């Protein structure tokens, strides 16, 4: 249920990025959700869609790419994708392993379009009065 809070955090980051690019139109948001990030991609997309729909950029596409768990053995350096319940190296049997992938939820990228036409989102077009 904390996907709502996560979606709000994503949306704030998106807003900050877009504020630095006046004139750009947001086309897509790309996220990566690690298997152990604690974020359910479906719930996250639902929550983010609600925020997007309320904004001036309601046509934005949302892509959430799931990322499997990845471990690296600290003993022999072998990198592997473990079953979720036993974190042991299949090469040397070592148990001293590091989670090297799949723990994070991150904002991977944004797709924007630099338009030649009106640069403000619909409903916010302003006229130059000079």
């Amino acid at each position, binding site marked *: *249920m904390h996907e709502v809070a996560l979606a709000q955090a*994503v949306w*704030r*980051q998106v807003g900050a990025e877009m504020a630095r690019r006046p004139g750009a139109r947001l086309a897509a948001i790309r996220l990566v959700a690690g298997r152990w990030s*604690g974020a359910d991609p479906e719930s996250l997309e639902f929550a983010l869609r609600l925020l997007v729909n309320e904004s001036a950029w309601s046509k934005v596409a949302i892509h959430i790419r799931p990322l499997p768990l990845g471990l690296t053995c600290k003993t022999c350096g072998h990198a592997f994708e473990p079953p979720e319940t036993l974190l042991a190296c299949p090469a040397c049997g070592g*148990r001293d392993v590091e989670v090297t992938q799949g723990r994070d939820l991150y904002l991977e990228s944004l797709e924007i379009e630099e338009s030649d036409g009106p640069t403000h989102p619909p409903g916010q077009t302003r006229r130059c009065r000079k």
Partner: protein
Amino acid sequence: MAQRIRLAKRVVAESDRLAARLAETFQRAGVFVANLMSSPGSGKTSLLEETARRLAPELRMAVIEGDLATDRDAQRIRKAGIPAYQINTGGGCHLSARQILDALDRFDLAALDVLFIENVGNLICPAEFDLGERRRVVLASTPEGDDKPIKYPVAFNKADCIVLNKIDLLAATNFSRDAFLGFVRGLNPAAPLIELSCRTGEGLDAWLDYVRAERRAAAAGAPRTPK
């Protein structure tokens, strides 16, 4: 023409920033801070009540309580003899670094040896949010079943200390101690595992020694080692 802006930014970056600030504050004050996590009803509050009663003569302690509603847990802790501050999260499923920062106004950290943060009873979201704590303590209890670790692997993997409570009820449940140990070690080979019963007091000494040792390390300025 569409253009892609690569960001690769952690969504909880803002929360991490606040947690780092908290960790620094705790380290400077030399206070041992433990973040207690478990399902509802595993015995987090009971463990803190027993800790308060037994360690109050030697350590100055306080508790930050997190619950969706009511201040019942904070009342229990105060009754056990130490200060407690209750945070009600409303619908929130975990305590946030921001809430802890705000709660710190209620305490004089310099006058504390140990600060316990009792997180909202939930093994999912609390595991994701760093609160600047020195140690993450995850509790389980025998009536919950021996397979809790593999159902909530993230919490058990990231735990610095694992407490198994209600061992007095072992005979009354079909909890397998061996199965539990196997599951825990499959996810977390090194964290200390302390088996105890808050009701009978069995095993509590090992927990109290753990708190004492961590407090000494924190007071000596030892940095935390987050996983």
